[in-house]
């Protein structure tokens, strides 16, 4: 019995943690020196490879046991200082556990949706319908040169309807619906394009493009036609504000700057305010639709991961403070009381 306890004591000791961590560092550094994308390779294999999963899981279990023992010792030492010492390790442990669960058991999928689209991830029985989408776009957009990040400020959202409830889904944080987290990965305009010859419509539909914020240019092909179209939204008018010339865009009914290439030749360069004539074809752009790129993920480790990061970020400064105070406390105690000065 004592022997068993001894073995258990050894297995769950900090030494085991140290050696598992050292083994991982060794493996990772070896991979990164001799191959490329060591982390990518590790993550690629982790979901399926027991040789990686088992040591990772053992590391988490051993860390948890040591964590409990650490919590007890810290709380016994001082109730007041315990949070300073415990927050960061708690965060680190939760992060590790969440990361492992996410790697091993999460599933995700992405889908383009519009109003009326049905959403049903393969891991879920219940269907949801996109009952409404709200791009958050204003009728007019004034380009004030903000550049990137503008889309996030607009806060697009959509509503998933199912099971008698409606769930609002935005960009971040994701919304948990049943067991699945949803968020909007991207959204934008899908201009309507009609190609006809002598009044007969040959092709018609919406093309999903990245044109927002206005000023972005996007390209697409329309098979079987041998053309490459590139478009961007044209400003509707200009205005002077504070001495600056600003462009005002009509987002709801935009006009486009259009370049059409055939092979390496540019066969048309102009705007879409009137039908474009190319090789006897008439090309028209009409009122756009909107597209959303919705991502769904079933991830049992999500909350652990999220809280782990928060606690760790909050805990590191506290830990440093505690270490500084502790170092001050240790100073002056390093005297040997058993050492008399006389012989």
């Amino acid at each position, binding site marked *: 019995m004592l022997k068993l306890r001894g073995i258990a004591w050894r297995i769950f000791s900090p*030494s085991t943690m*140290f050696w598992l961590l*050292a083994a991982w*560092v060794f493996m*990772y*550094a*070896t991979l990164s*020196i*001799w191959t*490329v*994308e060591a*982390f*990518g390779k590790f*993550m690629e294999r982790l979901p399926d490879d027991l040789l990686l999963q088992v040591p990772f899981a053992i590391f988490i279990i051993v860390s948890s046991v040591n964590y409990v023992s650490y919590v007890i010792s810290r709380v016994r030492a001082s109730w007041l200082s315990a949070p300073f010492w415990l927050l960061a390790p708690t965060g680190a442990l939760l992060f590790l556990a969440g*990361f492992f669960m996410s*790697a091993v058991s*999460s599933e995700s999928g992405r889908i383009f949706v519009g109003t009326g689209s049905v959403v049903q991830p393969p891991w879920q029985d219940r269907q949801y319908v996109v009952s409404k989408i709200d791009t958050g776009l204003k009728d007019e957009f004034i*380009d004030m*040169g*903000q*550049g*990137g*990040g503008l*889309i*996030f*400020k607009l806060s697009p959202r959509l509503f998933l309807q199912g099971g008698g409830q409606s769930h609002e889904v935005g*960009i*971040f*944080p994701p919304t948990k619906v049943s067991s699945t*987290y949803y*968020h*909007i*990965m*991207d959204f934008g305009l899908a201009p309507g394009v009609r190609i006809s010859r002598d009044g007969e419509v040959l092709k018609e539909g919406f093309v999903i493009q990245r044109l927002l*914020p*206005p*000023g*972005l*240019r*996007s*390209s697409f092909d329309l098979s079987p036609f041998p053309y490459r179209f*590139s478009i*961007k939204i044209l400003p509707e008018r200009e205005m002077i504000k504070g001495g600056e010339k600003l462009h005002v865009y009509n987002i709801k009914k935009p006009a486009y700057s259009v*370049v059409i290439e055939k092979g*390496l*030749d540019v066969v048309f360069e102009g705007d879409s305010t009137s039908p474009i004539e190319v090789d006897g074809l008439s090309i028209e752009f009409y009122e756009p639709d909107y597209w959303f790129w919705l*991502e769904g*993920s079933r*991830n049992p*480790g*999500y909350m652990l*991961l*999220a809280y782990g*990061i928060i606690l760790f970020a909050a805990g590191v400064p506290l830990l440093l403070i505690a270490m500084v105070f502790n170092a001050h406390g240790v100073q002056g105690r390093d005297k*040997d009381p058993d*050492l*008399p*000065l*006389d*012989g």
Partner: protein
Amino acid sequence: MGNKESIVLIQDSVVYGVREGLKVGLLYFVWSGLVMQQIRGEKIRSLLVGIAFAFFVFLSVSLMDTGMVEKEFSYRLAGYVFFLLFFSASVVLLRFQDVNIAWNQGYWPVWAHLIVLFASFVFFAPDAIASAIYLRELAELEQSALGVYLSLGIGFIPVLMAVYLLTNRSAGRISGFFGLAQFLIFLVLLKLLLGGAAGFAESSLVPTVQRGVMKFVHDLIHQSFLYLLVPDHPMLKTSTWNFIGFFFGPDFSIALALCILLVPPVYYLYAIITAPVTYPDSADTGADRRLVRAEVRHQRIRRMVPIAVFILIVTMSWYTSGSEKAMSLYVPEPKPLIEDKGMVIIPLSTPGADLTDGKIHKFSLLVDGKGVRLLLVRKPDSSLAVTLDACEICPADGYGQRGEHVVCIYCRTPIPLETLGKPGGCNPIPLVVSITDRDVRIQMAEISNKWKLLVNSRPGGEK
């Protein structure tokens, strides 16, 4: 080749010889000091046999006709041996502070000799390969192999002889400074200060570790964001992205790199300073105990010296140039190109540049009166990637190179060289080109169309 260049090459060879001689000599010196008290000759022999094997590798590589792959292999091998040394040293510093190798045991089993033999071979083999390649290149430049190898010998042999003489006189005095941890740290220092070969060696430890840390942190954060469903940077506010970008940047990575390098030795110093003194039963008076305590302290201080030197050198390396080197991306100035009958032709090799050297090369040309930048680089599979110096997502700030990655200057995403030529994301936009034995040919229309589409798509316009 002129006399002046010849003299420089000869000087290089002599300096090289001195450095290699110092490396062999210092290891011999310390090892002799450690094993001097007992059966020295036998234990030195295993070390010398290992060095002899490495010398054999040096001769083999010098005589072989090899290409780029060997150079790449040598570079990785040198890095890996360095990692093995530092890793072992760190483990020992953190876990086995009190371990003395059984230097003074009279009898060593065969396996102990084999370990010493193998370790000395592994220690010197990468440098032997690198040296052979470097000296062969020097010999080609000098057009005289004899001159180069003679110069090497002139540098190598006197240093070795001097160290040998010094060893007989004073090697015994150094044994008190070395336990297992100190010996491993000494090997790390030897590699750090005298390691590698000119032309393709890492001259400093800090930038290398920093680059690795940067990549790891980037990948870890990116993976965590994937799990947390955080949108990619085009969807984030600039301020949010700048905050996240701090963790991808050089300040954060240098702090982590220094932690990795300095925590084990600093912890060792802390442990050795705060470890209680154990008194033997015979020390029953205060005077005896003070004597014991003084002896222990003296021994501890000696053991701290090599570790303190290591800390000092790493800190100095960081303070002087390490961080700067890792921070700065290699961003070459674009070389101007001229269109010729709707085509741009870039020679693969000119007196001033070699497109197949593994570094990024940038070119610029005018399209409708505006500047366009191209990026060329030889990928690890030896194929050439030819792209625009811009991606589809970020402003067209272009790319720099850091090791085996190109890094988007705007969003700091590292992109492996292997993936260049593939479209999408933060990868540089690939161009359709034709590559002959002598040059790269690109249709002007291909360049201008893709660049126009790119810069017109930016709200901020062209950069």
